[in-house]
Every structure is written in structure tokens, then in C-alpha cells.
């Protein structure tokens, strides 16, 4: 049998434990949906179109929109505002 050696694992797993269970909505009618636009090309148009469709087809009462500035993370004030006013928030991720 070939000789063996021990090596130490160089990789780390994520350190953030799940912070809360996701709460599914019991339907969209009358709800407020927020969009955080990541400012990637065309996402603002997708936000506009999805917002209209969610209102027209699913009875969403209100759509809130916030557009990020490039790669700068969204500020705490906007996050707090969306958390207080929205039943669900949809973000853009990646290109």
C-alpha cells in the first residue's frame, strides 16, 4: 500500500448561518412589491415591465423601485424603507 500523508483543508464554508426562514406570500393581490434595480443594462426595463404585469395580472397594489448606483451597495435607509413597506422585494443579481 502506498504511503499516505495528511493535508489540511484550505477551503472555508460560508460563515453566515441562515438568518431567517423565508416567508412565502399567500397570494399577490393587494400586496406591495419592491424592486431593487442593480443598474445592469436593461434591468430597469424589466422592472418596469414586471411591475406593470404584476399589477395588471396578479392584482399587486403597489410597486416600489430603487435603482442602485453601479456597484455601490444599497444604503441602510432604503433597505429599512423597503423592509417596512414591502411584502416582497425582488432584486437583480449579476448581468
Amino acid at each position, binding site marked *: 500500500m*502506498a*504511503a*499516505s*500523508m*495528511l*493535508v*489540511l*483543508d*484550505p*477551503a*472555508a*464554508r*460560508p*460563515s*453566515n*448561518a*441562515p*438568518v431567517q*426562514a*423565508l416567508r*412565502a*406570500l*399567500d*397570494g*399577490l393581490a393587494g400586496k406591495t*412589491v419592491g424592486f431593487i434595480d442593480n*443598474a*445592469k*443594462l*436593461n*434591468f430597469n*426595463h*424589466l422592472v418596469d*415591465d*414586471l411591475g406593470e*404585469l*404584476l399589477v395588471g*395580472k*396578479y392584482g399587486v397594489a403597489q410597486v416600489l423601485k430603487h*435603482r442602485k*448606483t*453601479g*456597484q*455601490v451597495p444599497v444604503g441602510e435607509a432604503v433597505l429599512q424603507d423597503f423592509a417596512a413597506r414591502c411584502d*416582497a*422585494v*425582488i*432584486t*437583480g*443579481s*449579476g*448581468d
Partner: protein
Amino acid sequence: MTVCSAAFTGLGRGQARALGFPALPIAVVPHPFGIRTRDEIRTIAAQCVDDVARLLCETVVADAPTEAVGARAAAIEVADDLEAFNRLLLQRHWSDGLPAIPPTPERVERMLRHTHRAPDEVVAAIAPAFGVATVERIAINAVMAGCYPEYLPVLIAAAEAIAAPDFNLRGIQATTNPAAVWLILNGPLAKQLDVNSGGNCLGPGAWANATLGRAMRLIQQNIGGALAGDMDRATQGQPGKYTFCCAENEDANPWEPLHVERGFAREVSTVTVVGALGTWNMNTHAKDAADLLRVIADTMTFPASSDFVYAGEPWLILSPEHAHILHREGLSKADVKRCLWEQARLPAQRLSAKDFDRTRTGRRAELGEITRAALLPITSKPGHIGILVAGGPGTHSVYVPMSGHVRSVTRQII
């Protein structure tokens, strides 16, 4: 929930897991997305709205493997054979594609003797996966990269630096840009460790430069989770993502060195991290300051530059000869920055229509409403231009464009 194009779902899923929301619903739109016409976006919205509605109302449960903060690294038994070890690295996605040194407990222990910090001490959480960079785990990756044990304190300081909020590591690790972490050493330790600051300081031949930069890359991917093709979404990448490290040539620098400029004492040793998109050689035999600055500013001014879109932090590596020309005419480093900032102006009309839109949005807070007739400064103020003096004899300086919304960070090496 989040919306990703098909090419970015791995990144979206990885980010959700890293941030503690492993069950985050993801709606997928076709890729490429950004180049679609307005009508195509309407069609895509109509196609995916039902998915969006369903996902918002659907309960999903997913496991999230996490690890106790400060946990010691597990030991793995492998055949005592270099080829077998390197195959294991590839299988487990722990490799940068180059042969590595096995991080045996003995080698890691030898490295740990070069810091007073405990092996399980947490140095930082490294984005985008927010893996815990303990002192031990930094040492493991340093061993794999071929670092000598005495290099460890440099990497501990560098890990702290890349996790600083100003560095915006997520913007470097997960971007389509070819963003690399460039390590710059200043102070007496750079000489003690033989970090090259002269000829070929960014080229081959210096063990410290090669292995320190490589260790940073391994830390980024093995602890930070920025695996090429997974959460690292670089379109092409660049050779600097294998290793990118040098020292400042303080002996040939006519001005105060970088770390002194940033408030550290000259006898203190520091590491500075920069989010670098590459190196752009500028070969000019200009013999007077005005001519030299004009040529450098002109080279820095091009329409596909992230610096102009985001008001970034463009860097210059001035050769000692070029630095001497500027200094002998009485220019301070701040004077050089101001001259370059005033001259590196891009007519907004040179930008593509979409890039003009990005610039207008991205720099509105700084510049107000800009028009196609505007002359755009390369960044928001002269002080955001970084200057390093490095290299050997020759008429070559280097422009280093920056990844957007990233600010370099300097930390003392302890």
C-alpha cells in the same frame, strides 16, 4: 427573491447561500440579457412574470452548510505523492491550475510560528462566500502557494485589507471584469523578504512576489469562494489573477513612499491592496514633465474605461526615470495627480450610448446631469489617482485601470 440571467444563476445561488438565505427563490431570464432590444425585454417579462408570481408564493426549504466561526481545518489523508495531491486539488476545486505544495500539518505549523496570533483567530470573512479566514486557513493557502513561513504576517494584513468595506471585495470577486488583487509592499519588511521592487517587479523571478500574490488568489477562491466559472464571473480574466505583487522602489522614489503618503511612519511595513484590471505599458522617451504628463493623461483616456464610468481609482506605476523627470521640475506627487486629473478628460461623446447612460447614472451625484458635450474627469478628485514608483531602468511606466467602486486599502503588517 432575485432575478438572474441564465449565466449568473450560480453566482446568485452562491450569494444567497453566503448571505444566509439558501432558499432564496431565483427567477431566470435568458442570457445575454443586457444587449436585448426594448421589445425583447417586454417579451421576456411576459414570459417570466408567472414564474416570479409563483416563486413569491412558494415555500422552499434548502440546507445551508455553514461552519462554526474559527473552526480548525480538517485533515485529509491522501497518497504521499505530489501528482495525486494535485489531482485532489483539481477535483475539489482548490487549485489555481498550477502545481501546489501539500499543506501538511507540519508545514502549516512551521508557518504559524511566524505570527503571535492564534491559529483559530478570525482575521476576516472573505466575500463573496463570506468564508472565515482564520490565521490557520490563511497559512494553509500560503503553504500551497509556496510561501516561506515568514510571509504569513503579510497575508494576514492583506486578508484584513481586502475585507475592508472600502475595498468592495464583492465587486472584485464576482465581476465580469478581469479584476485582480494587486499587493503592494512598503517599508523595511519588503527588503527583508526580498520582495522585488526593481526590474521585472511584476514579472517572473522573485519567489516572494510570485508566491505572495499567488497565495492571495488562493485565499480569494478557497476562502472567499471566487472560483473561476462559478462565482468568479470574469469574461476573460487576466494573468495577474495568478499572482500580482510587488514592492515600491523606495530607494529610487524621489517622493514620500506610498505608506508615508497614507499616514504611516517610514519604518512601518505595510501592504496595500488594489483592485487592478491589468497593466498597460506606456513607453515614452519624453524628457520634460509637461510632455510626459500629457502623454500619460492621454493614454489613461479611452472610452471603454471603467474609471470614467464609475469615477474609479486609476493607478500609475511610474518608472524611476519618469518619476525623476517629474520631480526635478519641482512637482510633488500631489502636483502630478492634479495635472493628470486635469488633463485626463474624456469627451462624453466618445462613449457608446449605453456607456453614456451608465456614466450619467453612476456619476450623477458627483457631476450632476451630464450631456454628450461634457468633458468627464477620470475620477472625482485628484487624490483618487494612485501613484507608485517601481521598476528598474527604462522609459516605461504603467497605467493600471481599476475595477469600479473600489478603493485601495493599506494595512500595517504586524
